[in-house]
């Protein structure tokens, strides 16, 4: 009887996407009945990567008004990030130092593996290879 040997080649590094902190700051749980209490999703990360992105001050300045600062500061804290502004400075649109810091925090920190937890229902959304899995099962959907 010949034994069959199977060879499995695992690439050293699987290509992965990214979940930026900007995205995390906008994501909200859509579990049935949760509504506005589904924000912010509690972030837990087991694998994080810093990914340089071209600095676009226009874009960063336009995103600042959308940022929920408490949630951002909390998420940055969880990831042990340093130098995170706690709020927008006055005249931030022209403050390059501020914009560069925000650019780094919002767009260059990638969460590759971890979980997002709905604060109201406790439901966990896993993040795998930088992609959060937001699929709900039947009981959890609004429909």
């Amino acid at each position, binding site marked *: 009887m010949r034994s069959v040997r199977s060879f499995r080649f695992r690439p050293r590094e*699987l*290509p*992965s*996407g*990214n*979940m*930026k902190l900007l*995205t995390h700051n*906008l*994501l*909200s*749980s*859509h579990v049935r009945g949760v509504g506005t209490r*589904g*924000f912010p999703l509690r972030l837990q990360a087991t694998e994080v990567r810093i990914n340089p992105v071209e600095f*676009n001050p*226009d*874009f960063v300045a*336009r*995103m600042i008004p*959308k940022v*929920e600062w408490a949630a951002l500061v909390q998420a940055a804290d969880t990831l042990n990030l340093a130098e995170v502004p706690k709020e927008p400075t006055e005249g931030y649109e022209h403050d390059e130092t501020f914009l560069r810091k925000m650019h780094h925090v919002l767009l260059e920190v990638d969460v590759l593996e971890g979980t997002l937890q709905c604060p109201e229902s406790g439901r966990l959304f896993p993040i795998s*290879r*930088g*992609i*959060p*899995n*937001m*699929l*709900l099962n*039947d009981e959890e*959907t*609004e*429909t």
Partner: protein
Amino acid sequence: MIDIQTKMTERALELLCLPEGQPSFLLDIGCGSGLSGDYISEEGHYWVGIDISPAMLDAALDRDTEGDLLLGDMGQGIPFRPGSFDGCISISAVQWLCNANKKSDVPARRLYCFFSSLYSALVHGARAVLQLYPENSEQLELITTQATRAGFTGGVVVDFPNSAKAKKFYLCLFSGPSTSLPKGLTESQDADQATELTFTSERAPHKKARRDLVKKSREWVLEKKERRRRQGKEVRPDTQYTGRKRKPRF
């Protein structure tokens, strides 16, 4: 295949009428392997994509797209805070909401859930341009009804309405005050071409002419000769003898 997707993305972005010279933050629904997303990035915008297929998202990872990807079902709602996005596009995805994949799925409810959560996730006054392939006029009406219920105004822009191959539907939705709908593209330069959706189930207009005729009657013979002339075949001219009763030995 790739080229069509890119062309449709280009057209969708055009219809989105984003402010010029300014990077916007967009949502790409049914982003698939990121073909549309790549075009958005090339235009200098940033985006987040949602798709229900892990396989397609895997392909997007291989292509190293710039936008963030989410695994999600649009019919379950768009899981974002109000006012997150400056605009939304979708290429060839929204018609899937009309399929009931599970017994518990009710297309109208999924459509409403999708549109109402999309409405909320958009900045007030932002647009959504959704390219889709509606199966028939009933399906398109179902979709537009739910979009209207969710608070959107807008309409359907039809490009190349006279070409079976090139015809494309773009559902243009506005979340703020109504603006005029852009004109659909046509082959000719006529400005009078209708962009209103005229959906008929008319496929064989000539069939109706044949239905009421008794076979072998004079009218039937005349109609058949006319049909063959339309087909470009050689037909004897109609005379007073056409379709006359022949002797039984015929």
